[in-house]
């Protein structure tokens, strides 16, 4: 299975991964429009955790036995048995935030405007997640890991 791995000694904390994640998950393809025209700023599905000089882009780890999936009250969060990717069905999510409490990495985000929890979906449909593709220092890699 392919996962986003972090080579954090070279993560410089520029936050471009977040910016591009925001762009990817917005309606516009143009960065300026995505940020300026949409009613609220798109939300990044990963977050640079900081403890200078350490920076760590933390996104969903696509856990083997995901707490969020087990905890989801509505069945909105599911794990694809083939790819192992965990995604949220926004139609079903009611924004109860149980998954947020369940996630031991604190990487599920609240979309307060729409009352949806959102999380990294490894940019389904893209060959490489946009955070990886746009990391200027190659601190993020999209790597096949052994099961």
């Amino acid at each position, binding site marked *: 299975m392919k996962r986003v791995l972090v080579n954090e*000694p070279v993560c410089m904390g*520029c*936050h*471009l991964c977040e*910016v*591009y994640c925001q762009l990817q998950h917005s309606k516009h393809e143009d*960065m300026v429009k995505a940020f300026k025209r949409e009613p609220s700023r798109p939300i990044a599905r990963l977050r640079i955790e900081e403890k*200078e000089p350490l920076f760590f882009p933390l996104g969903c780890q696509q856990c083997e036995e995901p707490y969020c999936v087990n905890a989801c009250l509505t069945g909105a969060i599911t794990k694809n048995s083939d790819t192992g990717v965990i995604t949220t069905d926004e139609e079903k999510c009611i924004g109860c935030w149980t998954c947020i409490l369940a996630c031991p990495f604190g990487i599920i985000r609240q979309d307060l405007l729409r009352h949806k929890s959102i999380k990294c979906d490894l940019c389904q449909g893209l060959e490489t997640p946009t955070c990886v593709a746009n990391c200027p220092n*190659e601190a993020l890699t999209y790597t096949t890991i052994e099961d």
Partner: protein
Amino acid sequence: MKTYVPPKFMIIRDPARCIQCQICVNQCSFDANYYDIEDSEVRNRDENCVGCHRCMTFCPTRAITITKNPLEYRENYNWRSEDIEDIWKQAESGGVLLTGMGNDKGYPIYWDHLLLNASQVTNPSIDPLREPMELVTYLGKKPDRVRIDRDSFDLETELAPQVKLNLPVMFSAMSYGAVSLNVHKSLAQAATEMGILWNTGEGGLHHSLYKYGNNTIVQVASGRFGVHAQYLNVARVVEIKIGQGAKPGIGGHLPAEKVTAEVALTRMIPRGTDALSPAPQHDIYSIEDLAQLVYALKEATNYTKPISVKIAAVHNSAAIASGMVRAGADIIVLDGLRGATGAAPKVIRDNVGIPIELALASVDTRLRQEGIRNQASLVISGGIRNSGDVIKAIALGADAVNIGTAALIALGCHVCQQCHTGKCAWGICTSNLSLTKRINPEIGARRLSNLLRGWSLEIKDMLGGLGINALESLRGNRLHLRGVGLTDTEAEILGVRMAGS
């Protein structure tokens, strides 16, 4: 004290494009961009901007333009803005003006006054893409002649240690502490991949880089930082540093705040102290002392490694070089006026030394006149910008060139000359651990290797154009150079004829 020094640059932010992502803020290590929480808006402090373009490069919407401050003083050919502002800085501080990088003044760049030949009709140019084209260079002392047994053809001559370079370009000495470990890693990896050498500079060799020893020149400088038997023996070449082009005649000064734990470990000095390199080597007050140190190093390394001696190009370089060869140096490194540094007094950087082209030509000529040119390889550095400079240097007589600034530019350096501040936004000339990560050694090595690969292709192209398929046939072959815009004296020193003649 109220400063009179105006901002050098202005940061222009296009509000239509700015998405307030604050990347510029986190990328600016000089605090020239900041986020006003109260107004939820990114703002600038132009007075802090050094023109390094980090924010501009990383801005995902290209909302930022850095421009010169259009401020004009009343026109005055003598009193230029730099002169005026330097005086203000000193009047406000009472100190020595410090700067980084190399001489930026308008002294003639002779590379730009030299042109290369090409084959037309009488000999064919050679296509380097398809026909062999050899850039291999061996550094080290060569004997006057080879002796063999005429019957058995057995080789009777034993060569002094030779060092192979796949192309005649090496990385200049840049010490760990001045530049970061990641820069060292990038250089070491690229050198290994490309089959050339990199140079530790005077700050020792980090233990994690010992594995690159075979492609490493270790330096022994006046501070003797990190110099010990293992250090000397792991290297391919040992270099005695007498001086460098950016600051001939003076020593170095690595401030305590740059002496991180790893730097301290590598330099073998306590943390929190300044690392001071004396101006002279205190065991070399004369040429015979140099011989003493050269042979001390040969003894320490059992005569297995060429000993290199590096000097700044100064007025009597030719005579000095002759002495160095006779003192046993296997490699001579001349660092010219435009050689760079992590920190140097501005007045020295800008006013001391001579252009490398003239130094190279005069040293090569002198050594040939004395019949000892073969006894040492000649390496030059200081402002080599492209493969054209490289090949002209080779034609003037250099065995190889060192690139420092060009290598750093490949890594991202924007030549903003703030190395001495330790805040390098490109993460190169700093030991701030948050900034040093900005160099990913893997990318760094790739960028450097790419640069060298590109240059070697270009050098091959130029050689092919000259109808030559081995670099040694161009080395010192000044007939393939012609001068433009040179005085007779300059042409004579350079040993070239004028274009059209």
